């Protein structure tokens, strides 16, 4: 009940700044829509197994996926809470800081996710001939776990990035670096099938593809049930690793925290 109340309070805060939420939605929509338009005019070199309909649906799922799955809590943690000293008030409360940030971020993702779904539905209704995805019931069940795992991974990763401010006062450089890595390796540019093989191999060894790219192709029905379970197990492995890093950083970071704020 306590968690639900805090979550509802966070939702209230989201509705309070609805203009901001709307702009974030536009930001998330813009890039995939532009890439979708670009790909529609492309003629591929021979030997590329990618149709326009599967590309369009990829970008459609990517749009909703990036709105719903990619957490944006790092600036709040690094600037407002650590650099400006806002963390002190949370440390005094009988409620874990990580949970407050998690619920607040979840509220943002859910509200934006709902808006994203509306856009998804509208685009699907208007241009359904361009979309191709096949997803069975079993696949859908496993894919939903993958989506949940992806959100968890994204949140913990951004929490870690935000905590870097414990060590460097001005963390905006690290934040931008993290955005850059995500942009390159999470599938924002398009399906990895269109890129050189070595690039795809490297990207699959990193956790970022499992935060967005893999959930997107899982939702599209590209992966069979065996592959979905393999993805799920990799995600669990990454979640455990990320939690371990986050716990280690939090323990040491709080000791360094001065609470002064600049």
């Amino acid at each position, binding site marked *: 009940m306590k968690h639900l109340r805090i979550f509802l309070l966070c939702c209230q805060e989201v509705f309070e700044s609805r203009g901001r939420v709307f702009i974030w939605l536009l930001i998330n929509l813009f*890039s995939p829509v532009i890439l979708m338009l670009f790909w529609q*005019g492309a003629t591929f070199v021979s030997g590329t197994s990618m149709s326009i309909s599967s590309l369009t649906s990829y970008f459609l799922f990517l749009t909703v996926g990036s709105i719903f799955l990619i957490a944006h809590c790092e600036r709040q943690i690094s600037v407002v809470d650590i650099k400006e000293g806002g963390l002190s008030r949370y440390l005094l409360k009988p409620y874990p800081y990580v949970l407050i940030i998690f619920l607040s971020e979840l509220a943002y993702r859910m509200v934006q996710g709902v808006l994203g779904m509306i856009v998804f539905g509208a685009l699907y209704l208007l241009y359904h001939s361009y979309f191709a995805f096949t997803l069975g019931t079993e696949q859908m069940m496993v894919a939903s776990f993958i989506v949940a795992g992806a959100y968890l991974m994204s949140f913990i990763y951004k929490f870690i990035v935000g905590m870097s401010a414990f060590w460097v006062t001005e963390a905006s450089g690290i934040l931008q670096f993290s955005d850059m890595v995500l942009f390159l390796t999470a599938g924002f*540019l398009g399906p990895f099938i269109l890129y050189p093989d070595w690039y795809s191999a490297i990207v699959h060894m990193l956790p970022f593809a499992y935060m967005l790219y893999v959930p997107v192709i899982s939702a599209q029905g590209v992966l069979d049930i065996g592959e979905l379970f393999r993805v799920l197990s990799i995600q669990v492995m990454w979640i455990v690793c990320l939690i371990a890093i986050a716990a280690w950083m939090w323990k040491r970071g709080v000791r360094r925290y001065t609470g002064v704020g600049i």
Partner: protein
Amino acid sequence: MTRYLRLCKVLWQINIKAMRAYRGHTYMMFFTTLGWSLIAFGAMYFVTYRVDKVFGLSRAEILMITSVYGLIMGIMHTLFTANFERFSQLVNRGELYGILIKPVSAQFLVSVLRIHPLSLMRLCIGIAFILLLISQFSISITLTNVMLAIPLLFIGAYMLYCVWFICNMIVVWFHTVDNMMSFMIQASNIGRYPPEMLFATRNVWAFLLVPLTLFSAVPARVMMGTSTLTEIVILCVCALAFHAGSQFLWKRALRSYVSGGV
């Protein structure tokens, strides 16, 4: 004019001193800026890796547009981005008042108070990439074309500045929207793609975005000798129209500004 140039010199000195104060942040920003500028070109290189033609344009033409886009964004990020990012804070906290009472043009001060010298790296990388393209794709470029493209490049940059300025004025009326600059950067990404992409949609809303593709496409085409006079005229007319729009909105916005901070 001399006064403003002297002021620019002082502002550069102040900003370079600020860079020295946070050395760790500056090193990280160096790598991030380098990364993003390489991404601006590398991403398009990967995106077009298996592409033969896009909207009838060859890969070399697309990559040339991307390179010119990189040059213009280099100018924008060096001079304006940090200032526009701070604009919502100036309005929201009532700090714009401090700028308005200074005996120089407030629009000038709002636009160039914070400079990001590291972004000049984007310009250098853009030029290097253009030279690379010329040699790799054997593009024939004449000195006359380059001389004609340079003023158009600045006209394109000025047009983009006016568009960013107009959009940022919205903050004066809607205080909670602090992410307008992120949206504008995202929207400006469309400059990496050819205007044909928007014409192909035959959608009136997509046509509204055409000026945002012209700022990079026209100088790039002039450089390659494939542009038409109509395109050049449209770019100049758009720049003039957005200049008039920005002046008009700035005056209106100042009338609505209440200087009450939160």
